[in-house]
Structures are given as structure tokens and as C-alpha cells.
């Protein structure tokens, strides 16, 4: 072949694959998340330990329950559900297999009756229930705040935002951080002259539902940019601008990677990624840091719960210490059960979730249900029947 003599000189010039690999090795150390700075000192509202609610008002345990249950639903509640199912398996030896497939898929699986229970961040509407095989009992399981996380390396304390400003940012009408609207809310902060990288969910999401619900209630600009209130709230939004991240993880990665990034996340993901998040103005006019305590206040003062508990609590409370972007997440169970063992297991499991399960919620940065609401949820369990008679005693 005659290529031995000149091989080396060519070799050094023409090996294109090696530099490509080298880029990977050298850049590996600078991943996302490293730029996130934890929120500065917690506001007095969030300081101190979270006292477990210690509810004892559950129903009596029903005997003869099945040893396994299957459920499907939102990813929002999945980390909480895995804690509940592990603890419940240890204490009561019942396996709860939860598929975190998304709220829409959870509702679809309830309608097809392929799971024992469903879960969704938006309750089933009348038209959803019409497609199901019978009446559905819906009960909130837990409350959770959605935070507005941002990545501005020099600003470690919570920026102040109101709904209209956040709405303008996500509608693409505020594009730099030193916009007068942001400066006006944060007179003492030196906001940098950086372009805003808007990050939203690319997949349908209950988190999006809660966040867009808040924007729709607080930001006329958001509503008009999206073309009306029927289009400005939902699990999917026709986002005018921004990066779509898949899942809470995708959003936190994109925010963490971009100086100037802003996105909305469930609190537990923002805490896990060490992202800084904003204090948001509530109905009473105060800027509130999101945490378990302030999210719990989001249902404070609500008394007019409908009998089926299908209520929108986002930005409703007028409590001075309530974090406004707080939503509920629902369990969906057929009211008329046909299998005695499954019916007993369902009532027992959700009874655990609504009583002892509420005590462990705060450890995963979820918010236990308020006392008033929790009582009503236990009442929902009593509506589940087997051959016409209530399962719970």
C-alpha cells in the first residue's frame, strides 16, 4: 500500500473525531444546576419547622382489602405518591403501583376502567365524566405551590413579581430583565440588562394548568395575547415565546443553564435543583415566598366548597399570607365499585393518604390539605359504594 512512511503527519491533521470527543470531556464539568443559587433567608412566614397536621378523623379500616392497587395520573404528584405507597406498603402490606403518565392519560385510563384509581391536577369535568363508565368520586389529595424560578447569578433573594408582570413575560411582551415593569416592583435590586429566556412545559401538564390559571386571573395582557380566557388556561397552551422543556426536570434544566432564564416549576423540583424563585403578589397585595406554610394558607378562608369538591383554589384566598399560585391535585375513583376487595383497599389507602399521609407531605415539599378541606375529603370516601351500600363504616 505504501502508506507507512507518511502516515503520522496526515494522522495529526485528519482525525476529526477526536476533537469532537474532547469537547465532551472538557465540558462535562459545567452542567446545569450549578449556577442556581438557593433562595436567601426564608421569609418569616416560611421559617421554622412544618408541624404535621396529625389528622385522626379518618374512616375505620375496612377488612378484606385486596393486596394490590393500580393507579395512573399526573407527574406532579408522582414523588409524593411514591412516598405514600412505600410507607403504606410497609404499614399495611398493600402494594400501590402508580404510573406517572400525565393527568390526561390518568383521566383516559379511568374512563377506560383499566386502573383502580386515577389522578389528575385538573378535576374531571362533566364531559369527562360523561365518557366514563359511571359516576366518579373526586377528592383532593394534597396542595402544591407552583413557583416562578429564575436564573440571575447576582440576585439570590426572591425578586418580587405580580401576575401582570409574569403574564407579560410569558406572553413575550417583556423581553429584558431591566424592563421598567420589573424595576418598579424591585426598586432596591440592580436587575441586569439580560435577555429573558422564557421556559415552559412542552408536554401537557397540570403544573401548566395551575400556572396559566393564575396568569388568566391576574394578567389581562396574558389573556388578550392568548386570544381570550378560554385559550389562556389549560394543560397545553399555545406559548407565544420560549423554550419548551419536557417535564419539571426539562424546565429546571433549561432555567439552570441560561443566565436570564425564567420558568414555572412545582416547588419540590425547584428546591431539589437549588433554583432561586420569586415572591409573588397575592390578592391581599403582599409579596409571598412559596413554601409549605404559605401554600397551606391558599385554602384558608375558603368555606363555600361545592359538595363534589370540584373547586379551583388558584389565586382565590384573600388571606394576607397565602401564596397565590397554589393548586390541588385530585384522586379519581368510581363511586359504584363492583369488587369488594378492591373497594376496601381503595377506601383504606385513601383514608391513609388523607390522615397519616398528610403528615409526611411537607417532607417532600408538598403541602398538606387545610383542616376544613381535609374533613370534606374524608367525607368523599364515604360516598364510595359496593352494591349500593357505602364501603366505609
Amino acid at each position, binding site marked *: *500500500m*505504501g*502508506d*507507512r512512511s*507518511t*502516515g*503520522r503527519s*496526515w*494522522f495529526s491533521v*485528519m*482525525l*476529526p*473525531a477526536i476533537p*469532537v470527543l474532547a*469537547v*465532551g470531556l*472538557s*465540558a*462535562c464539568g*459545567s*452542567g*446545569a444546576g450549578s449556577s442556581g443559587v438557593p433562595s436567601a433567608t426564608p421569609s418569616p412566614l416560611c421559617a421554622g419547622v412544618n408541624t404535621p397536621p396529625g389528622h385522626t378523623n379518618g374512616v375505620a379500616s375496612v377488612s378484606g382489602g385486596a393486596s394490590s392497587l393500580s393507579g395512573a395520573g399526573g407527574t406532579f404528584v408522582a414523588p409524593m405518591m411514591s412516598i405514600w405507597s412505600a410507607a403504606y406498603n410497609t404499614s399495611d402490606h398493600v402494594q400501590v403501583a402508580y404510573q406517572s*403518565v*400525565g*393527568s*390526561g*392519560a390518568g*383521566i*383516559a385510563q379511568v374512563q377506560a376502567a383499566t386502573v383502580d384509581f386515577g389522578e389528575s391536577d385538573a378535576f374531571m369535568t362533566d364531559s369527562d365524566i360523561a365518557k366514563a363508565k359511571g359516576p366518579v368520586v373526586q377528592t383532593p389529595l394534597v396542595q402544591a405551590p407552583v413557583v416562578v424560578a429564575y436564573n440571575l447569578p447576582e440576585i439570590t433573594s426572591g425578586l418580587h413579581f405580580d401576575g401582570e408582570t409574569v403574564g407579560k413575560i410569558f406572553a413575550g411582551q417583556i423581553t429584558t430583565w431591566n424592563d421598567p415593569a420589573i424595576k418598579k416592583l424591585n426598586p432596591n435590586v440592580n436587575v441586569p440588562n439580560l*435577555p429573558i*429566556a422564557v421556559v415552559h412545559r*412542552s*408536554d*401537557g*401538564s397540570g403544573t401548566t394548568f395551575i400556572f396559566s390559571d393564575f396568569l388568566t386571573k391576574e394578567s389581562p395582557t396574558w389573556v388578550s395575547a*392568548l*386570544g381570550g380566557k378560554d*385559550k389562556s388556561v*389549560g*394543560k*397545553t*397552551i*399555545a*406559548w*407565544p*415565546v*420560549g*423554550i*419548551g*422543556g*419536557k417535564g419539571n426536570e*426539562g424546565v429546571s*434544566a*433549561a432555567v439552570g*443553564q*441560561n443566565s436570564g*432564564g425564567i420558568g414555572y416549576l412545582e416547588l419540590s423540583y425547584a428546591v431539589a435543583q437549588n433554583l432561586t424563585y420569586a415572591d409573588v403578589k397575592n390578592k391581599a397585595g403582599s409579596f409571598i415566598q412559596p413554601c409549605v406554610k404559605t401554600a397551606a394558607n391558599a385554602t384558608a378562608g375558603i368555606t363555600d366548597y361545592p359538595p363534589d369538591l370540584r373547586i379551583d383554589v388558584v389565586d382565590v384566598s384573600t388571606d394576607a399570607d397565602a401564596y397565590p399560585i397554589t393548586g390541588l391535585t385530585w384522586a379519581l375513583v368510581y363511586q359504584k365499585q363492583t369488587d369488594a376487595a378492591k373497594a376496601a383497599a381503595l377506601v383504606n389507602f385513601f383514608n391513609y393518604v388523607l390522615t397519616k399521609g398528610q403528615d409526611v407531605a411537607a417532607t417532600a415539599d408538598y403541602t398538606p390539605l387545610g383542616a376544613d378541606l381535609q374533613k370534606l375529603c374524608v367525607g368523599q370516601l364515604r360516598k364510595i359504594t359496593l352494591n349500593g351500600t357505602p364501603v366505609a363504616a
Partner: protein
Amino acid sequence: MSPASAGGIAAIERHPLPIALRGERRRLGDSVFGAAVALTGGVVLLVLAAMVVFLVLQGLPAMRHYGFFSSITSQRWAPSEASATLSTPNPYGIVQFIYGTVLTSLIGMVIAVPLAVGAALVITDVAPRRLRRPLSSLVDLLAAVPSVVYGFWGLFALIPAIRPVVDFITSTLGTVPVIGVPFGGPFFGVSYFTAGLVLAIMILPIIAAVCREVFRSTPRNEKEAAVALGATRWEMIRIAVLPRARSGIVGASLIGLGRAVGETIAVTMVIGNAVLHINPSIFDQGATMSSVIANEFTEATEPFHLESLFVVGFWLLIVALVVNMLARVVVRRGVSL
């Protein structure tokens, strides 16, 4: 077809089934083998046909409701604006996804093909002999990396690495009127360009591996003849290796293109998933046909949403088939050159 191989087929046809001609009894093994092969081959065709029928059937409600071609004449995808009764305008336009698929694949090809050809030449003709085998297996190893790993790597390693370069481009070339529009900023990491770059790195080993085999098949005596005539290494490659390999390189590239067009998870992770419309800059966010399906099918709860995702799947299949057929035409023409 080259004259030689055409002659070969003709020769076989003149003497069909020599075993049968000799009057011997056909063995049981032959008929079992024949039937088994026919069955497996038939299953492949059946699966393909069933897939097309399935996609059309699933997408049919949306196609009927909005009209067959309305999705490929609109570039606005807004499921939240869909209603069960309104049929115009179609909120499920997919031109921006076709654009995203084509653009990212194109960026991938432009970067990967020269690199892959170079890498293959290094392995076959340039690198010191003792390095060729390890290099060769390294390339094969790269081809086996799962795509989700490429996506992860793209997100956490590649984006920080290219950011200074892209920031420089957007702040210089990107500010020029008209020609600067496709290079405009600001750059937020995930973009058409990033997706193209990740695709390039994914398809590079595949193209390089095929090219390597193609270059290896160059007759040794032709290479030696070129060197004997006083050709340098480069001239030897230019005279003896590359002309014969042209159709092989094209074929290899099209195999790579096939993977790039359908690649889903890695692209979904780095393209930014802006589904609403086409963004003009390659440094802006976009979406491809496969990325929108991967993102939205789990929560496709709006009216005609899931059906429209099947429509996207149908057109993706069409695009893939067109790319493949184009590949055949190009390869055939390449051979006759």
C-alpha cells in the same frame, strides 16, 4: 446496475434451479426453508402495511374534520385553540415540524458527512497501522451509544461548550440586516442548530463505519499503481479511492439521513420545543415531527389532538419514505456516473 452484475443475473436466469434440473428429489429442508423465508418476509411487508393503515385510520377523524391537506398548509400548532365543532382554521398545522425535521437533518448532514468521510479515510488509509483497529472499534462503539445519552450530553456538555461561539456569531453576523436573520440571537442553548449538531455527532459513526467498508474495498493494485506513478497520499486518495467510493459515500450519508429524520428523544431534549410557528433563526427554538409526538401524546386531551398527532406520524412516514426513495435514485445515479 453495472454491466457485470446484470450479466450475472442473466446467467442465473438461463439456468434456473440446477438442482431440480438434475432430476433429484427436492429435500424437505429446502421447502421448509423456502416457506419460512417467505413467511418472515411477508410478515415484514404486512407490518409496514398495517402501520400505514393504522396511522391513516387513527388520523382519519382529524383529516376528515379539517380537510386532508389543511395540516400541511398551515404552520400554526395550537391544540388549546381547537374546538370540537369549528373546522377552520386548522389549529394543527405541521409545516413548522416538517421544516424543523428537514433543517436539523440538513445541519446534521452538512457537519457529519465531511467529518465521517475524513474519519473513515484516517482509519483505512492514513492512521498508523497499529492505531487503525482501535480507531475502527471506537467508531463502532460510538454508533452503539443510545440516543438519550446523546441528548443528555448535548444538553449538559455541548450547549455550554458552543455558547461562546454562537454568542459571537449572533452578536456579529446575526445583527446584519436580511442575511443576519437566520443567525439572529439571543441564543438560549436549545435550538435548531444544537439539535442539528447533536444529530451530526449521532450519525457520524454510522456514516463513518459504512464509508470505512467502502474505502476498504478499493482494489489494492489501483492504490499501488497511483503511488507508483508518484502520487502523494492525498493524490492517491483522490485518484484511486474517492471516485470509486462516490456512490458508497452517498449511500452511507443517506443511511445517516434516515436516522436523523426519525431521531426523537435526543432532538426533543435539545431543540427547545417551540411548536407554535417557524422561528426564522437557526439559533432559535423549534420542533420536529417526531419531537412533537413524543412531547404531546401522553396528554393529548384537546379535541382532535391525538388524531392530529397521528396525522403528524403519517406525514413523518411519508417524509421518511420520500427520503428513502430519493436515496435509491441518487445511489443508482451515482453508480452510473
